[in-house]
């Protein structure tokens, strides 16, 4: 991921305030989308793996991970230690009713 892509990814994640929903992940740009899909399906990812899969420096990947923690998709695992941060993935939507995907999801998927 080059610097422009990194900045764009940060903006993408900062654009929303609510917890990340499944329908949010579907419309994220690459490589964020596929990396998150993999992490969600596996249930966990390390900061090292996140950086490697996004092709970012560790510090940059940490910025993205911090945003994902803020938006409740990533949770720092108790397995984390001085050498490595492990994140558990969990889609959550506290106090949110059964809802619909964002109104422009179909356009986003078609784009």
């Amino acid at each position: 991921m080059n610097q422009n892509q990194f900045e764009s990814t940060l903006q993408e994640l900062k654009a929303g305030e609510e917890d990340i929903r499944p329908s949010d992940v579907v419309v994220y740009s690459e490589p964020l989308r596929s990396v998150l899909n993999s992490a969600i399906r596996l249930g966990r990812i390390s900061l090292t793996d996140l950086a490697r899969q996004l092709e970012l420096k560790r510090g940059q990947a940490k910025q993205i991970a911090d945003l994902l923690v803020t938006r409740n998709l990533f949770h720092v695992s108790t397995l984390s230690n001085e050498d490595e941060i492990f994140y558990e993935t969990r889609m959550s939507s506290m106090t949110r009713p059964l809802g619909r995907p964002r109104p422009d999801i179909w356009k986003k998927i078609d784009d």
Partner: protein
Amino acid sequence: MSKIVSVHSFRGGTGKSNTTANLAALLAVGGARVGVVDTDIQSPGIHILFNLDESEMVHSLNDYLWGKCGIKDAAHDVTGHLGTQVKGQIFLIPSSIKAGEIARILREGYDVGLLNDGFRDIVTEMGLDYLLIDTHPGLNEETLLSIAISDALVIIMRPDQQDYQGTAVTVDVARKLDVPKMMMLVNKTPTAFDFDDVRARVEQTYKVSVAAVLPHSDEMMTLASSGIFSLKYPDHPITQGLKAVVAGISS
């Protein structure tokens, strides 16, 4: 290694619940421990196929989502309800059929994360070989979630123009969620159709393999969800087709 399998269709009435119940039964016949979750909270029904009466439902998925019980407490062993002996076991987590509880969950919603946790926890806590998720038709956050965490996705459609268009959307979304394995099941196919032609057309349209093309069946309609078709008609072409789906899931 356990597998989570979602059974989905864009439109209603394609036979998701029947298919899910039959797949669970065939897997149990083969000796597997199978969990089935009815996530169609708005219109639950798979419990009828397993002859689980409302009075027997100690806890439902609704209770778990409201924090009233653990996910394991909502699992009902329905193996003995199948009417025939099988080597494996089936555990059903039903959704509540009480109108007030359906209305409540529609009004208040629930923590989607609990559903995520529940799927993973039930597999571990019950030592399941397979967890089958019977989904609500169409695309919503819950169906997207089930697809997002599934190892395999069975998409059911009928050879109908409305299904063709809607299924394209589902396949597209499933690809964006990077489902490891996806297969199509064409159901309720008129016997006048050329089944090979239907298979070829669907595979060409969606670039997804078709596990089976199942015929429209008077026997299925007559059974009317009062039991598991594949156990009552083990040699029927429908059962042979469902076994092909099981083979696709298992591989």
